[in-house]
């Protein structure tokens, strides 16, 4: 075979045609070499992206057979235990999809598993971005898009969950109605608008269907595109390391290395979703039976991403206010409004505002293209763990009936424990995380100043045993040395004792105090014998210069 020196005509011709009309060559030349940094956690967002692709494809398949109608019919399909039972057309067509359409059950299960992976992928991606501070300038807007996507995903899940009109989805719908109707003043209007009359009415499935297959996915698709374009133009953050700085990106080019990895990761995601759908049954609607408002089952649960709202509802104390002491004047059911709105409000608003709050506290207006290691901003990491614990306690308590039934704990005990833990556990999480971060920083300082343990014990002529330390690998050292102190506001009063502008008044003083606590260098690097830690000073007194990279001790 001869060496290939010119482009074959079969490739050159069409390429030229396209290039002359679209100018694609220039675009590709610029973008195919785009560099992507490499770290496993940077792929987590792709779980959500690829699950979304799977959702669009399997969802389209499902629309071919699903009938979004609440008209009552007698079931006459092939699932024997429901023969002759009256049910809505939506439920009957979901049963048809499951039992009478070839591949229908697999598609339904893939759609549902992909939905769970979609939200789970978004969650871990958001956590990665949060804990590495990757939302900092200039990426705040992309972070906000992400928060919007997460909210929409919950809404998409809620509407999709209600479509098959089985008993379990009906229970979820009933809670949705309960929340809507508990809103002060507008509650009844909102409910009648949503359901087209008395609950459950005959419209809600077709309305949710339009939202679920058209409006919300459309917005999600647009926001996902915006998310990707912004990421592309702003470039991905990278972990600190050798030869990396705030103005470059070290990694693999999009073509071929990153494209191959992304392609492989799509296949992995597909394999996991298809594998789960093949081997693990999800949402067996035929077991739940058709929805009638009179029936409700033990163990009725929402999908996991709504679990924290369920948990909030379950541990809430039964408070309600009758206006003017009588229910005729109107009732404010705090026992529904608070769990429905407060946890969600805290988490979503907190996520959206965090980048701006952090900047307000630290006064950090610089651009950041490094992913910060979580330990190096201990207060942020502790706040993140606090939020996770808050969410986690609610999530766990959303399943308190299953916990009670399967682990033989009194249901009442789980509820009372939940009411205490929802306040106690986040506070503990804050303290523990903060101390762990400092501990890890101290460990890093130790690695930089006198190397890593080599595992070699040496006996000195006079009998003393010492352990040899070797200098850390240069990649590791560069990674550790990428640490930057968290910025602090200049809060020191001037010579006349007047604090700087913006630090006056009660809010300003609070800001200055928060800045002082949040920012600063807690454990300076390059000094393993942290200042002010007397006992360590003694312990290492004989070691010599802290920054010596030869074998020290």
């Amino acid at each position, binding site marked *: 075979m001869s060496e290939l020196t010119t482009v074959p005509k079969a490739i050159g011709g069409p390429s030229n045609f396209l290039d002359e009309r679209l100018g694609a060559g220039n675009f590709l030349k610029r973008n195919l070499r785009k560099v992507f940094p*490499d*770290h*496993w956690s*940077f792929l987590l967002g792709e*779980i959500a992206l690829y699950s979304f692709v799977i959702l669009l494809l399997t969802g389209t398949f499902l629309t071919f057979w699903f009938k979004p109608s609440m008209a009552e019919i007698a079931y006459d399909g092939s699932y*024997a*235990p429901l*023969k*002759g*039972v009256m049910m809505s057309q939506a439920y009957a067509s979901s049963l048809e999809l499951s*039992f009478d359409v070839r591949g229908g*059950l697999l598609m339904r*299960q893939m759609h*549902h*598993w992909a939905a*769970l*992976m979609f939200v*789970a*992928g978004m969650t*871990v991606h958001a956590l990665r971005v949060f804990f590495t501070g990757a939302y900092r300038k200039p990426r705040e807007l992309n972070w906000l898009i992400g928060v919007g996507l997460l909210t929409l995903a919950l809404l998409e899940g809620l509407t999709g969950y209600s479509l098959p009109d089985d*008993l*379990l989805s009906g229970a979820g719908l009933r809670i949705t109605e309960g929340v809507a109707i508990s809103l002060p003043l507008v509650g009844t209007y909102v409910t009648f608008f949503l359901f087209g009359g008395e609950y459950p009415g005959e419209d809600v499935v077709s309305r949710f269907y339009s939202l679920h297959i058209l409006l919300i996915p459309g917005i999600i698709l647009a926001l996902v595109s915006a998310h990707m374009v912004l990421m592309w133009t702003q470039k991905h953050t990278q972990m600190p390391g050798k030869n990396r700085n705030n103005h470059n990106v070290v990694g693999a080019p999009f073509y071929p290395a990153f494209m191959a*990895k992304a392609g*492989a*990761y799509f296949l*992995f995601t597909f394999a*996991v*979703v298809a594998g*789960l*759908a*093949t081997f*693990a*049954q*999800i*949402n*067996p609607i035929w*077991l*739940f*039976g058709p929805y*009638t408002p*009179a*029936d*409700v*089952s*033990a*163990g009725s649960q*929402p*999908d*996991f991403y709504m*679990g924290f709202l369920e948990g909030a509802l379950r541990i809430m104390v039964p408070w309600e206010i009758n206006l003017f002491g009588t229910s005729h004047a109107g009732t404010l059911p705090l026992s529904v409004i608070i769990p429905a709105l407060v946890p969600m409000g805290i988490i979503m608003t907190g996520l959206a505002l965090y980048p701006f709050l952090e900047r307000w506290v630290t006064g950090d207006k610089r651009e950041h293209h490094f992913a910060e290691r979580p330990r190096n901003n201990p207060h942020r990491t502790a706040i993140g763990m606090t939020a996770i614990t808050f969410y986690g306690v609610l999530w766990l308590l959303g*399943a*308190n*009936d*299953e916990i*009670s*039934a399967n682990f*033989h704990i*009194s*249901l*009442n005990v789980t509820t009372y424990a939940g009411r205490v833990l929802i306040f106690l556990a986040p506070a503990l999480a804050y303290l523990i995380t903060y101390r762990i971060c400092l501990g890890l920083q101290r460990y890093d300082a130790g690695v930089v100043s006198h190397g890593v343990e080599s595992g070699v014990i040496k006996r000195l002529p006079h009998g003393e045993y010492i352990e040899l330390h070797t200098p850390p690998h240069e990649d590791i050292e560069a990674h550790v040395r990428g640490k930057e102190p968290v910025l602090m506001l200049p809060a020191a009063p001037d010579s006349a004792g007047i604090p700087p502008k913006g630090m006056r008044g009660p809010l300003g003083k609070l800001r200055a105090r928060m800045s002082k606590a949040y920012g600063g260098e807690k454990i300076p690097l390059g000094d393993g014998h942290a200042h002010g830690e007397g006992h360590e000073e003694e312990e290492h007194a004989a070691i010599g210069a802290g920054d010596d990279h030869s074998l020290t001790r």
Partner: protein
Amino acid sequence: MTRITAWRRHPLARYAVLIFALALVGMAYTAFVQVGKPADAALASGRVDDVAEGKALFELHCSSCHGLNAQGISGKAPTLIGVGAAAVDFQVSTGRMPAADSGAQAPRKPEHRWVNPDSIRKLGAYVQSLGGGPQVPGKEQVDAKLGDAGKGGELFRANCIQCHNWVGAGGALTQGKYAPNLNQASPTQIYEAMITGPQAMPVFNDSTITPEEKRSMIAYITSVREQTDPGGFGLGRIGPVTEGLVAWIAGLSALALAAIWITAKKRQKS
């Protein structure tokens, strides 16, 4: 470094050892549990006078809590006058009675050594003689083949699942009580539970749910529990809780491992 030493120092070695140890402990536990189970009681033979023999059994095994004349002891156990043979058959054949301790609820457990169909019949005859009550249903009354599963399913959803869950997987009640799993209950036991209302369960008498309807409900319960899950492993059939666990533990862990794998750098030989 020999190959075995290299394996021993492999980063995954400690996990392998941990999993091995856990498996070993698990197997040992299972073996002990098997040994601890009592052997099936041999069938007692001979029937002279059921009521008299039932009274003797009662005095031996039940009277310490229910009183010598089944009148009940306040704060300890209810009276058994009028509960009928069906209640005796349900409680004793499921191992709930004699109770092991006075907890929130007596659980289903392996029957006691003296319990067999014969001794239950005698005990039932004695309790029946005290003040009547529901009788043990006949074979035909609980024959699932004669019931209409579709109709039974509707009744099951309307009356049972708020405590027992949509497939009878059970659920929690207040103060440590619970609605048990229905998978182990025989058709006769299901019927008896409905007519006697054991523990926290209400009574569904024949005017609330007719005997034919009860038979249809049994037909539904047994047909659904014998069903092979068409979608793969049933995950306990308790709904989104286990599904969420699987999504996070199996799905997300697998994908995180995949991400670590494809972004891993080749280790440099030093």
